[in-house]
């Protein structure tokens, strides 16, 4: 009995220590953007200054859970917004694991389906958990209490109708993918999913320009960027979410050379793991 009491006391003490430590580290009133290391796939986690949690894509497996676990306090088991840029398995399988481990308050995606069993299972799970679901297009925006804005900049409804007239997406062809611009004060980050040149051009013609952080489209695929698009966006930092020795040859040397020649600092998840950017709305830094 005496021993049980001792163990209990020590555990309560340690738990209290962890609580206080995590409150100080995770609630620093700053914006955190994390490009998670999920191998060949995408998962981007955003924690706003007031502690709202946004996840954009979930990667190809359960490794997104490690990323969330590392960047959220342990008692926070809620994601305020979960977004899927487009229904491909290297972006949504992880969301399935997220739904099992977190309470998700809202879900948004582009208005495209996919006939695979995996995607159907995901949508069914979302329906089963009664998560409010919204299909978003360019022009829609999420405005959070703490001043963070997540603005959808592509694709437009017209673009989706032109590229995917059947309303579905195949496993091998990438056309429309949600592009969103995350803004906090003076800091802005463009998250691109698997989008291609045509869609970025479309977004730029609608007024997109000059950003701080660019998540390089489609894991650094040849068809994601052109030099003139990069010049308009003129990011200070480029982040590539890519798996080690992947079979697609991502990121392509074409894109890497282009970033290098424009002197844009580039970080890759296969080399550095999770990429975390912290901003107070005035300046920003890489952790």
């Amino acid at each position: 009995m005496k021993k049980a009491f001792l163990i209990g006391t020590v555990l309560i003490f340690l738990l209290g220590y962890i609580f206080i430590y995590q409150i100080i580290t995770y609630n620093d009133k700053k914006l955190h953007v994390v490009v998670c290391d999920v191998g060949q796939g995408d998962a981007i986690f955003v924690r706003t200054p007031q502690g709202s949690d946004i996840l954009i894509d979930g990667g190809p497996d359960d490794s997104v859970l490690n990323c969330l676990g590392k960047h959220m306090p342990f008692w926070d088991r809620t994601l305020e917004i979960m977004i899927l840029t487009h229904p491909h398995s290297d972006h949504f399988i992880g969301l399935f694991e997220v739904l099992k481990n977190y309470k998700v308050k809202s879900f948004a995606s582009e208005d495209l389906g996919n006939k695979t069993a995996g995607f159907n299972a995901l949508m069914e799970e979302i329906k089963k958990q009664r998560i409010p679901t919204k299909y978003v297009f360019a022009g829609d925006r999420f405005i959070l209490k703490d001043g963070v804005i997540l603005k959808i900049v592509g694709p437009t409804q017209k673009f989706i109708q032109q590229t995917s007239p059947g309303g579905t997406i195949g496993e091998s062809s990438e056309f429309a993918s949600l592009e969103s611009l995350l803004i906090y004060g003076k800091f802005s980050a463009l998250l691109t999913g698997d989008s291609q040149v045509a869609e970025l051009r479309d977004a730029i013609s609608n007024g997109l320009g000059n950003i701080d952080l660019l998540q390089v489209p489609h894991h650094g695929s040849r068809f994601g960027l052109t030099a003139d698009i990069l010049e308009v966006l003129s990011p200070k930092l480029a982040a590539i979410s890519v798996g080690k020795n992947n079979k697609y040859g991502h990121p392509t040397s074409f894109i890497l050379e282009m970033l290098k020649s424009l002197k844009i600092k580039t970080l890759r998840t296969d080399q550095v793991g999770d990429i975390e950017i912290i901003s107070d709305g005035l300046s920003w830094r890489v952790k």
Partner: protein
Amino acid sequence: MLILAVRFYFFYDNQHQLANGQQISFETTILSQPQVVGNRQVFTANYQNQKIRITTGRFPEMNYGDFVRIIGQISNKNNRVLMYSPKIEAINNSSNILQSGLRRINIFRQKLITLFSKTLPSPSSSLLLGIIFGIKEQMPKDFSNNLKTSGVFHVIAASGMNVTLIGGFISTFFAFFLKRQIAICLSILGIMFYAVLAGLEPSIIRASIMGILVFSAQILGRQTLAINGLFLAGFTMLLVDPTLISDIGFQLSFAATLGLVLIPKIKAIGKIWVIGEGVNTTIAAQIATLPILLATFGTYSIYSILVNGLLLWTVPILMIIGGIGAILGLILMPLGQLLIYLCYPLLLYFETIVNIFGKIGGAITIESLSWQFILGYYCLLSSVLLILRKKE
């Protein structure tokens, strides 16, 4: 022994030989939780006394207790009967008692998984689920690899310690207001329920049979010898399913328990503060299982004794606090969550050690191990044990 030999003869004599490329269609109940590996699910199904390892897509997700019709092609590889991406149809057959029972337990199991994984982040939640219930399907792949390389994967297999704690807990609890015999009966039922909940792996079946023997002996007022219980458990299991003899889980569980019973503890080590007992148990279990481990996995981490010593003392604490948390959590979620929180510091400690030693890796690698070596090893081991016994 004779009965077993007869059983083996008839079993293998009756077994159908499945040809490579043969097309078969059969109905079966899934009796073990399918393991998710990347984009695939893997499980074993029984077809006319033959175990078939089935690999299929990740979705739709299948569960333990599902009754299904499987149509597919056999492929034989390395003496294993496999089947890739068969057509699987779910059959609804709620009149089957076994099936509806399993399904009900599975719902309960899912509730437990949800409670833990919505309380703590991964991998802490899955580690705790593994330690208390032997539930492994939530475990992230890299963490489960680290558990293997650092030599503590066995803590997430439900086995003897779980059974002892559960049986002990139920019988003491109910002994307060029921007759002792009834309390013991309840604890036997509890052990059986737990074994099904944990997924009916060989280690938990062995432990349950031994546990039930110990508890029934208490009703009958007899003494039991662990060694007799172990052999009775092994005997019964092989009688029911002779293929278990080649199951690694069965071999390891049986050999490790035998080692714990027969190999004497080193007193000097046992006295070391906190970690001594864990080190001693690990040494005994490892001496008994070393050839099996090497032959199966090909690697052995020389740090595993140290890692086990550092970690094993936390296991019963985690089981008790987490187990009570699970029961309370099913009744009143926040109350259970508080207790599960209390496990978090220990889980963090556990994970840190596992990840450090998982990265260092196994130090000894062996290409292949001949059966002559294995036989020789066990001959030497038994002679040493006999000499030690004689001296006492």
